[in-house]
């Protein structure tokens, strides 16, 4: 089970593709690779979270074919920050999976926005506030499930997180 992210990363992306197809092109959607990155970080530490997030995001970038690198970096940041927060900031509470799901979405959006800006890639402004909030709510609701799955996959032993 040591190398479970090698399976979980492509699987999360395939799930995301299938999930996205069920939502219209203008609606907010939950983000499975992001949840994988955030909870990998929370349960396995910042380095593992960053690495999982990077490759999960890179796969998503390649499948889209433009702006390659944005998701790789934003998900890596989410994995790293949730790992860091899991070690030092987050309290031992049942609300943590919800908070991580919600917070990771906002952070992912913020980091993406910065990268788009730095890379001079288009004029992205906070044009989809409602989409971001809805996606954050979806991810918060899916947080406990993602937490359980990642916890189970990583041998059920939260190695560095506080949970």
């Amino acid at each position, binding site marked *: 089970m040591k190398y479970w992210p090698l399976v979980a990363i492509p699987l999360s992306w395939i799930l995301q*593709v299938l999930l996205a*197809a069920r939502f219209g092109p*203008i609606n907010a959607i939950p983000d499975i690779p992001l949840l994988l990155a955030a909870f990998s970080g929370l349960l396995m530490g910042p380095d593992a979270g960053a690495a999982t997030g990077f490759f999960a995001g890179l796969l998503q970038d*390649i499948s889209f*074919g433009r702006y390659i690198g944005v*998701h790789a*970096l934003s998900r890596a940041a989410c994995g790293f920050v949730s790992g860091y927060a899991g070690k030092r900031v987050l309290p031992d509470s049942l609300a943590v999976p919800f908070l991580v799901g919600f917070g990771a979405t906002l952070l992912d959006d913020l980091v993406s926005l910065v990268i788009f800006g730095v890379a*001079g890639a288009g004029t992205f402004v906070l044009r*989809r506030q409602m989409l*971001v909030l809805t996606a954050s709510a979806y991810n918060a609701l899916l947080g406990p499930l993602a937490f359980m799955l990642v916890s189970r996959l990583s041998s059920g032993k939260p190695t560095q997180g506080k949970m």
Partner: protein
Amino acid sequence: MMLLDRRYGLRRLILGALLVIAAVAVTSLTSGERGATTGIENLVDDVVFPLQAVAHRVAQSFASARSWFADINRLKAENEELKKRTSEIDSIKVQLDDALNENRRLRELAGFAERSPFAFIPADVVGRSTDNWFSTIVVGRGSLSGVEKNWPVLSSKGLLGRTIKVTARTSTVLLLLDTDSSAGVLVERSRDAGIVSGGRSDNLLKMTMFSRDADVREGDSVVTSGLGSIYPGGLLVGSVEKVEREEYGLIKSALVRPASDFGRIEEALIMRPPAGEKPR
């Protein structure tokens, strides 16, 4: 021990910084128009497309079964109504056939060649962008069906967008609603020109007129102008929802409600440009 920790921390910092720089550079390089798709992208597409197609078919079967049960009473009433209308349409069709025949004869007389420069490739919508940043859909036709980049894509009601990435079996369509989308347009009634662009949170299009004195009214139909290199003229984009009056502004703008319902796109028509005309 502390030195080791510090070294490890420094190495991690350098690696992180290199990754950030590399990612930003690649993002910048891949932000504009790209040429052909890479082998990796084609491989990714080959993995995903069968799954998308199956998911699409399963979802469609569920949707049709559900609507069949729900709509059975409505369908009965509709059937009666349609029977009545069929007889009316039959008589109209006779008149229409006459008019078409007359038109054909007159064209031949005037020496006009049949003008049908566009061909359409019908395609099922099998997916969408997997994130909340881009407004794109994926259709189940690609280069194997002859599709190329920057071909216009329509719904039965109006313009949807253009193809931005074509793999063997699928094409990604950038919708008009996306921040990166824009199209040259005309107000059909007054023939005043402008540009529509996406990126709004209310899913309307912003139309910026070239002239401050442009004659735009609410309800006006907006069609493509044909001035750009991608969209031919005359494709319905939508109708003017609101004219924004800026008394001292240099430009005039309006909000356009798209003719296509972007929330419910199931099929699309990819428009093949006439032979000899290559897209950008």
